[in-house]
């Protein structure tokens, strides 16, 4: 029998009979994890960076309070790690997702590696609040997700790859937004800082499959215990 895990701002989060988790919400945009892994712009870079960035640097914080980029100490008062000459976007910061990817040899990558994180610009992914991660027995981070825009019936297979705030439901990567026809900041200087669909609109359906590793564009994602 299905059960309601919880409710965030009017949206029930339901664990269905088959173990999947469903909810409807809007779709804010998350550019985190984009480090140019597949040729698209990075999420964040210093002001001196010449190329485009997906998000406004202010959304990563600032000196002493780096909320959105990887730092040398791993703490928010550390120094942001800058991509080197052999990285995808030399000079850009390294932006992280909650889901960590292994190297080609299957071993963990260092936190400074741009490839450790899931690229928002090219991988359809979903952001979930702690209520979902803690509310089901199965592993959510890295699991399969299906996202559907009920306004145009466009649907995409994705992966749960990032953690959101405790009181927010409905956030997706830029690639996911483009795939289902959600405004993805087209024409904006910082696409991830624009676009999206208001949280109260309830037009985006989300279905997550805890314990089922996501397979997106031929890549199988690791399930990650939180």
């Amino acid at each position, binding site marked *: 029998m299905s059960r309601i895990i919880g409710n965030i701002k009017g949206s029930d989060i339901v664990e269905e009979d088959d173990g999947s988790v469903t909810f409807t919400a809007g779709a804010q945009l998350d550019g985190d994890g984009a480090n140019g892994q597949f040729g698209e712009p990075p999420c964040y870079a210093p002001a001196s960076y010449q190329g485009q960035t997906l998000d406004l640097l202010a959304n990563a914080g600032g000196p002493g309070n780096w909320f959105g980029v990887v730092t040398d100490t791993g703490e928010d008062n550390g120094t942001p790690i800058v991509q080197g000459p052999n990285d995808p976007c030399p000079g850009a910061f390294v932006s992280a997702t909650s889901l960590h990817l292994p190297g080609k040899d299957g071993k963990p990558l260092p936190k400074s590696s741009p490839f450790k994180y899931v690229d928002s610009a090219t991988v359809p992914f979903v952001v979930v609040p702690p209520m979902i991660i803690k509310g089901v027995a199965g592993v959510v981070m890295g699991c399969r997700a299906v996202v559907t825009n009920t306004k145009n019936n466009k649907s995409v297979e994705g992966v749960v790859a990032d953690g959101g*705030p405790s009181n927010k439901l409905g956030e997706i990567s830029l690639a996911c937004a483009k795939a289902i026809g959600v405004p993805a900041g087209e024409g904006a200087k910082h696409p991830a800082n*624009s676009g999206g669909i208001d949280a109260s609109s309830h037009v985006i359906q989300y279905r997550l499959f805890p314990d089922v590793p996501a397979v997106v564009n031929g890549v199988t994602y690791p399930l990650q215990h939180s």
Partner: protein
Amino acid sequence: MTILSLLAAVVGRPSTRAIFCLAVCGFASLPAIAENEVTPGIVGVIRYHFREHLEGVKPGGKQYSAPAYETEQLPPSSAPSNKEQVQVIEGKVAHLPYSFVINLGGKGSGTLEVKILTADGKPLRGYPKTVANAFAQGTEATSQDFEIPVTPKLAAKIEKDLLEKNQHLTQVQLVVQTSQ
């Protein structure tokens, strides 16, 4: 004779049927022509962007949430009398001590002007701002975004009054979109 029977009699005659059809088609097309000449309505939304410090994250894990935002909406736009080419939003939101005057078309067709005034009536630093062809057809732009500077004191007040525990304001933004 009722209106319906009169209508039936008029339309029933072949000689008047064509005139009737032309008249109906002409009336039906009038609103479409008029709408095309009117500047579309606009909406203004304030986005309060933040990140949340996540509790219970394992060492080496991502300590902060993905970015997200809360919103507050400005009043709907209206067209000043006898100025159908212009749409204006005037108003305030609960968590900013500013007044907004957003004008589309007043400084030329398609030109968007944003004025933000502080409590003492002075323009906020960096404003007014003007964008030509803000929502021109054929461009990708579906909205226009404007950063709103906030002092550390104001940021702290917004965090206290609007955001939840462990949530940190990262920026405040005005988003102007057409309402169609």
